[in-house]
């Protein structure tokens, strides 16, 4: 009885730590992104990268957004104190198509999802 009571007391006051990783959408291929250039057709873009996350109409033109987002959260929970820190970054590819939406005119890409960091709230996670 005494032993189990001590165990319960210990478990009640022990601090807890956790880390989580959350992703949105599938990871983007840098190799596939590198194959997209001015003149690539919309069909080839979809063949290389799949269905876009979003399609935006820009006048007579359109743009496809491909996005992969990653979040890492770290937490520390003690008796009365909770500390949490989360970091979110993403890989993005914007493909701008010309009038009619058939051929690529511009491409912009950023690959930062793998740079997410974990740390305590006082940690400086900036690059």
């Amino acid at each position, binding site marked *: *009885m*005494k032993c189990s*009571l001590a165990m*319960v*007391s210990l478990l*009640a*006051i022990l601090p807890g730590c956790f880390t989580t990783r959350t992703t949105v959408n599938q990871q983007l291929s840098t190799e596939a992104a590198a194959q997209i250039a001015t003149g690539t057709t919309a069909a080839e873009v979809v063949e290389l990268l799949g269905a876009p996350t979003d399609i*935006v*109409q*820009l*006048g007579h033109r359109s*743009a496809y*957004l491909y996005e992969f987002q990653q979040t890492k959260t770290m937490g520390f929970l003690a*008796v*009365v*104190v*909770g*500390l*949490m*820190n*989360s*970091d*979110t*970054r*993403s890989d*993005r*590819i*914007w493909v*701008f198509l010309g009038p009619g939406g058939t051929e690529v*005119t*511009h*491409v*912009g*890409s*950023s690959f*930062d999802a793998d740079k997410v960091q974990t740390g305590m*709230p006082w940690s400086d*996670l*900036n*690059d």
Partner: protein
Amino acid sequence: MVGSKRLALLALSLLFTSCVSVVWEREHWHRPPRVDPVSALQEGDDLASCLEVLGAPLKAWQVTEGYALSWAWYDAHELSCKLQIPLSQNGSTSFKYTSIGRETEGLLLLFDAEDKLILFKEGFLQDLMGEEKGRPSALLPSRKGEA
């Protein structure tokens, strides 16, 4: 007797944990561009060079005859302290203080229909979006006579 003291101590510690709590949260969401946009960009630059300098934007949308691109980021802090005091078997009173610091900073670029940069602004996104929304829309040539 010893057992009852331990039980009382356990009850007291559990009571204490439910009385006071302090939570400190921080959230990083994206990062500012590595390049200082003010020195790297100038009006008249084309879309390709802007994408080369800043990478892919977070958002793109149509604005009158042209379009806008935006980048955004924040580093938010939240500190909350809660004190809860049980007054009776069925009631309690609590005091909670929360300090939140979160201002989304951003960069807004406006391009004309020929993909030339016509305006760029950096600052707090709320202000930038307010400015952008406040811009009067251009009248279509066919509608100018009606106005």
